[in-house]
């Protein structure tokens, strides 16, 4: 798997789909490719947010610590982006991610990610657009919940 295939994978991520391929190549090049065996942890809840990840292959569980122990709340699959909220808001990890089957991921360092956003407004706008969409969805869901 080379840089070009990774760029293809990045284009599948909604947040990055409108970004110039040369920028995605820079993003891929400055990221680190990491493989996790089944059961290996990508990061722990409460830890410092130092990177975002894009899953290139495999699946991973999102686990949240509750008073009743760990709870799996979601399943991540290929082309999912994770951990990006933490590095944007400087908040600690809100969940633990554990590889279910072997996972291949692209690890985008926080410093690099913020640097790229600072240098390329197009990327920053794409990220904002994605965040705005999420907010809109959340608002809509809240509205439907309160209407009930």
């Amino acid at each position: 798997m080379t840089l070009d295939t990774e760029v293809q994978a990045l284009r599948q991520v909604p947040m990055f789909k409108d970004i110039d391929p040369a920028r995605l190549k820079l993003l891929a090049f400055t990221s680190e490719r990491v493989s996790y065996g089944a059961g290996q942890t990508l990061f722990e809840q409460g830890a410092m947010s130092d990177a975002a990840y894009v899953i290139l292959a495999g699946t991973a569980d999102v686990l949240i610590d509750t008073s009743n122990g760990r709870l799996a709340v979601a399943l991540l699959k290929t082309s999912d982006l994770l951990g990006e909220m933490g590095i944007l808001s400087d908040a600690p990890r809100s969940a633990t991610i554990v590889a279910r089957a072997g996972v291949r991921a692209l690890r985008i360092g926080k410093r690099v990610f913020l640097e790229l956003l600072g240098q390329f407004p197009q990327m920053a706008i794409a990220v904002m657009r994605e965040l705005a969409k999420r907010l809109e969805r959340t608002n809509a869901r809240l509205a439907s919940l309160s209407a009930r």
Partner: protein
Amino acid sequence: MADGAMDRNLFRYIWRHSRRDQLVIFAVVIASLPFYFWSLELPKRIVNDAIQGRAFSDGKQTVGAFDVTLSLPGFLGGGSWQLFPGFQLDQMGLLFGLSGLFLALVLINGGFKYWINVAKGALGERMLRRMRFDLVRLLLRFLPQTLHGIKPAEAATIVKDEVEPIGGFIGDAFVLPLFLGTQAATAMAFILMQNVWLGLLAGSVVAVQLIVIPYLRREQLRLGKERQIASRKLAGRVGEIVEGIEVVHVHDASRWELAEIGGRLHHLFDLRFRLFKRKFMVKFLNNLLAQITPFLFYAIGGYLALKGQIDIGQLVAVIGAYRDLPPPLKELIDWDQQRMDVQLKYDQVLQQFLPDQLMAEELQDPARGRNEPLVGPLVVQDLRIMDQHGQVVLDHFTLDTTLPQHVALIGEGAAASALARVIARRMEPAHGRLQLADLDLTRLPEAISGRRMAYAGPDPVLFPGSIRDNLVYGLRRCPREAALSDDPAYRRRLAEARATGNPVDDPETDWLDYAAAGASDPLSLDLALVAALELTGMGADVYRFGLSGRIDAGAGADLRERIVGARHRLRERLASEGMARLVEPFDPARYNAQATLGENILFGVPLSGPLRNGRLTADPDFGRALNETGLADLLVEIGLRIAQTMTEIFRGLPPGDPLFEEFSFIAADDLPDYGDMLRKVSLRGPSALTLPERLRVMAVPLDYIEPRHRLGLLDEAVMQVVLRARARFRDLARARGSVAFYDPAEVCEAAPLRDNLLFGRVAHGLADAEAKVTAAMTRLIEELGLREEVERLGLSYQVGPSGRLLTPAQRVRVHLARCLVKQPDVVILDGACTALGEREAERILRMLLDHLAGRTLIAVLRDDALGEHFDSVIEFDGAQARLVRVAQASHHQHFEEVQA
């Protein structure tokens, strides 16, 4: 003046220490004078007797010469004995005979000069050595309170630079005026003997030189000194501006600063200009006098010769003698000037090094050490301590207790620390008594306080060198018998040391007192050092240092075998635990995908030359191997592809962006060059590149690692060529010894221990690979009993100047461990742990309390959170102390039991 210090008067100091040598040189100078006089006299005879033939005037064909006759002066009867009848010579024979004699005299005079110069030089250097040594010895005797007034840089400058001209002068101090003075007097006397008038003429010119020129020079000297001070201040101001440049910019003071500097420069210029004028005036006068006198001699001397009052021979001799006169005079004047200058410098040096009070010399006498432990009743009576400014820090402090015990001195103010420092002999009390058993603690010899006590203050002072060097500092007590005692060079060294009042101790031999650390040899000492570091919480760091350390070239075959064995065991272990793919081992026959392309070609650790600086392509062997195997062309091709990708993906980033530095194969500034090269190649093919361009492009892929950079540039074919280049390079470089090659069956001394154990590269892109491999390695090291060896290697870790290569916390830990290594009876802890943070400081304090059971620990604490663990607790409020709890009877009893 304190005893053992230096004389106020430089000449007395010089005379006191070099009397004998000076007298020997005097004697030789006196002995040389007759020869000198003779060499002046001889030209007269050559001209008169041999050339003008006066000796043959009465028609003789031969004349007697070179007879040796001893005659008694008239008042002793006037008898004479001919010891050697001499030769009968004709005019030619006489000429060559006398000329030959003249040549011999020239040689003899030269020989005298040479000997005198060498003797003077040696004398000066010996005195310089003595003076420097005396200064450093004085420095070591400074009392703690006086030491604060000395700036380290100033003291170093004084010892190194400022005494240097004094040393240069010492050789000349007595000899030069004597030598030149007698020489000038001889010449003068000679001229006078030839003709009184010419003598008086020469004398008056000399008088002008001796009176006027020194007067002018004196002013020159004053200006010179003023200039020196002004330029020193200029340097100081420039330094201030540089240090405070932020403030200058913040407050827009540039204009003022520039004006200020401009003013200084004008002053400096003015001084220098005045100096110049003086200097050239003196030169002019000197030249004038030197030129005018011969004129007078020719004119007046010629007149006298024509009148028949002197003969031509005399005139030639007078002119010859006069030529010899000005240089000694000039040097004499110089000497006088130097004398004033040097005396001034000496006074300045002494001012710095003669405080009112020095430590008594006997307190540093190594013979005053004792072997008994520092225990017994501790009595403090009416102690008063004052600080630098004369403020009373602690007053009316009285204590009666017994050591060993653990004492907490609690207080936020200066009192607790001051008391600790007084007990540690780091400060003198203003008043009061401090007695331990029969010892007066305020006058405790350093041989006792330095060996049986350890004071850990807030500043961890480390010396450059290894951690080991720093830890054993407290054990450097007494030199072993020198092994080289029969070596002539060593004997000479000793003789010189004795001649200059320097120590005869040999710093090269083993000084360590192993027994004091509970050890018997270097090996067991190392273990004790590691144990001390473990106590202060630095075990893991030392282990880490050891892994990154290089195996000593002197390491035994046994250790090497164990390391290579461990290397194989690690491989098996990783395989059996399913971690084999985390490490890709170095295999001479395979391309290591996890290492850089350059490493794959080198396949070893560079030892020297351009390879060492990472400029692989600059190495001739490397270039040859690439060219011969055809890898060079491949590298150019790959390099161009990388350049293509880099220009593509980094386009649009500003040149100073940190991403460039961190990720790009090509620096931002170089990208345009590579753009040009790419265009050139796309038009005309790779052959269009010039040789320097080719070399630049070739260097680009050397840092490439496929699994990390993922540009898909390496295929099997390229790897095969790389392997061929590796083999070829190995053949070429082996002869030169520029690379330590990896060999699965050998230790690679140039590589860190960790690399030697791993013998491969940790795979990129596998989660936690590094941590897992390190953990497996550590487990294995423990199992094989290698941890000790690793830690010993870690002791060789260099701490850098003032320990700057260590973190602040590590410095504190080494500092503390150094105090523990010498196993003192009394440990005084005064803020040493503050830099570690509250929690760690508490942990170390608990550890010390435990470790020092049965010995004395005096700790300065800010609060009494741990007070319950101490036998005695003393609280300080301002300058007053409150004895919260003082251990008494039981300890006295215990002490008596011990004594019994």
